[in-house]
């Protein structure tokens, strides 16, 4: 059920002065960021710039050294027990390495997304109620993998596994979807498929998406808004639609992930100018 147009955009993630130290390393350095419902935000930054750490704070997988993390109106670091799990169940997390349980079937992997709604431990398809199984099959259908439901997860290709992981996240009925370099282990074609799927789901369901990437071109193609990180601090925050060439160059200048990429875009721009 998408949010109705009449309700004013509402803040779902609010980070203020967020800092995180790992021993002597500063992973995040005073990050303040506000994300509104339905936005698709892409985090860009070099390796080690703090993208994963930032996402992990939103799902309480890491706790801040300083600053505040508010998600869906909850003060995340203060949560524990049942309320922590309730929050986590509202936030889907998609990992670079998919993190499916290799020996379980695709369907059971999707079903694990519903654990927060169920009581007690589950092992085996028979231990899940039928209604959940139907819903899991529907999500598999949506990501185009219904025919693989009973195959072992580790027999799928990387792109397929990531789509199963997306189905697992959808199974949570999340309000927010976090994706940490969801396509970094995939070939370009699967990458486009997965990014298109995330984008489509976000629009149809009115989900808020925070996705880290390190390819600027992908970010420009799929984001509503681009946030650049460097050394744990926000160095860029701009809408991703209707960007001028100069703005694109600026993004590359601030967060380009490799000189190769930088040069490629530069030549492309020059070619275009020459035309």
């Amino acid at each position, binding site marked *: 059920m998408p949010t109705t147009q009449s309700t004013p955009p509402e803040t779902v993630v609010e980070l203020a002065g967020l800092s995180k130290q790992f021993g002597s390393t500063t992973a995040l350095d005073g990050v303040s960021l506000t994300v509104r419902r339905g936005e698709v935000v892409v985090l860009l930054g070099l390796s080690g710039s703090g993208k994963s750490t930032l996402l992990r704070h939103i799902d309480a*997988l890491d706790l801040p050294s300083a600053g505040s993390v508010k998600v869906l109106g*909850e003060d995340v670091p203060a949560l524990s027990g049942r309320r922590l799990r309730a929050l986590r169940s*509202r936030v889907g997390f998609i990992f670079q390495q998919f*993190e*499916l349980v290799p*020996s379980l079937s695709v369907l059971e992997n999707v079903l694990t997304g519903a*654990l927060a709604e169920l009581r007690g431990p589950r092992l085996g398809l028979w231990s899940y109620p039928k209604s959940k199984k139907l819903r899991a099959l529907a999500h598999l259908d949506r990501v185009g993998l219904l025919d693989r439901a009973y195959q072992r997860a580790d027999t799928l290709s990387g792109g397929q596994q990531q789509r199963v992981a997306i189905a697992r996240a959808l199974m949570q009925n999340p309000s927010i979807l976090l994706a940490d370099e969801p396509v970094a282990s995939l070939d370009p074609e699967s990458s486009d498929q997965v990014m298109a799927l995330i984008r489509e789901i976000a629009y149809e*369901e009115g989900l808020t998406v925070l996705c880290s990437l390190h390819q600027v071109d992908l970010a420009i193609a799929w984001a509503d808004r681009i946030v650049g990180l460097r050394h744990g601090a926000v160095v860029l925050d701009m809408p991703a639609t209707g960007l001028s060439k100069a703005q694109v160059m600026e993004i590359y200048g601030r967060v380009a992930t490799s000189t190769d990429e930088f040069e490629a875009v530069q030549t492309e721009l020059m070619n275009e100018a020459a035309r």
Partner: protein
Amino acid sequence: MTSTLPPRVTLRPPASGVAERAPRPRREPERIAAVLTLGALVILAIGSLVDIDISLPRMLQSWSNAERFFERVGAVTFPETGELLTLTAQTLGLVLTGTLLAAVLSVPLAYLAASNTSPGRTWRVVARFLGVLARAVPDVVLAMVFVLMFSLGSLPGILAIGIHSVGMISKMFADAIEQIDEGPRLAIRASGASTLQQFTAGVLPQVLPSWVATVLHRNDINLRGSVILGYVGVAGLGLEMSYAFKSLEYGRGLGIAVVIFVLCVLMEIVSSTVRAVMLGSGNTATGPFDRLLRRFRRSAPALTPRRPLTPAATPESALHRPWTGGRVRNSIAGVLTAIAIVAGVVVSDIQWNDFLTFWSRVPEVAVRFWPPSFGSYEVATMLEAMRETIMIALAATLMTLVASTVIGSLAARNVAPNSTTRSGFRLLLVTVRGIPELILAIVLIVISGLGTQAGTIALAVGGIGLLGKLIADSLEEVDSGPERALTATGATRLQVYTGATVPQSAQAMLGHTFYLLDTNIRAATLLGIVGGGGIGYYLLNSSQGSNYATVTAIVLMILVTVLVIEGLAIWMRRVFR
């Protein structure tokens, strides 16, 4: 405490027809058969528990039996010092020499058995089969045979231990060889080395640590098992103990049991120290002494200063390897090992000319063992006894599995609620592992007077040390990614455990359980020898009554059982990949 979260919105209510369009779950007949077999085994094991009558009233009864026993027997007594030292030296010499023999024999056997070094398929099959055979025949049985061929002394025991241990050591060694990184060997082959050179330069260096670890582990097992050899006449502490119990000197018998117990614990400490020293700091051993050693090394880095590698002035001066800390340590360890081996051989007092004379006795002995026959026993009696042995093994395995799953899980870093819990349960496992189960069985049987129950409980307790550790390790080895993913969905700890941790380690746990069952079948046989019921009793009786054809028949029964279990284990491993 109500949540301020906005109400949950269900995404995409189930589209109509997915259930119809979904593929049917695949039900491979082989998998169903395997699941049914597993279920049948579990039911059999539960039935065995009931049959053996392990229950609280029984345990209370054995407790009161034990109290009465100690009233009757009085104090535990020890042999005098001189005698004690001689006996201890005999037992240690026997065990060390036997293990050494096995260690040497297992190298060529493993070479032939490993798929990547074996000269051919036939060689591989034959070598693997010899290994299985050596493992399946209990060392006691071998000792019974060798006692007939050799003059009394340690030689029958050494050969029995040596040949039986080859089974396990060569298997582990061959498995290690199959898992090596092929790169170095390829490089050495590319330089024109012979097959043997490839093995010594490219393979051995990679598998030596695992070989050492296996041999040390086997040495511990052999010491624990050596007591049984005494029951069939091999000199040492075991023989002395069996004499004591036979002549109803219970105090003295228990005294010797205590001595063996202490020896076993000391040997564990020595071997875990040796392991730590020889395998260096990179080892993953988790014994308390390994940890102590590692801590010591960490806190005293100045002992082995890391000198920069300066190029030697001349090639001639570089010819002599510098005496670094590591080299000193290795040399000391090498010299100590050599001394221990020589001492072991010397105290064993081997009658070397037996090796010249025993050939002439082989035909004569062989005739007495063949053809197999149950002799004066009825077939039904023997089958019943074999059934009892299998029941003891099944019941003990089930009890161990249940206890080890709980203890092992709490001892796993990624399952335990906190590190104190983990350390506590790890310590418990190490302590239990120190208990030699056969000694425990003997003591329990003697003092409780309940053979089968006491034996089963002793086996079950002894198994926890092994299976609990294996389970804890396999749980810790799982990929943590899926666990993190389930935590991120809001699952509880228990749900993460069953949803991500257990499925990833289930195959390993199944394999370990079958390994334990396999060990338990043999151990249950030995139990009978010390009064724990089952086929072992008849084995001992027929050997003492010189009914060797019956010994052969019983050994064949045991062999078939062990091979069936082994086959089941291989099948399960294949089905539940």
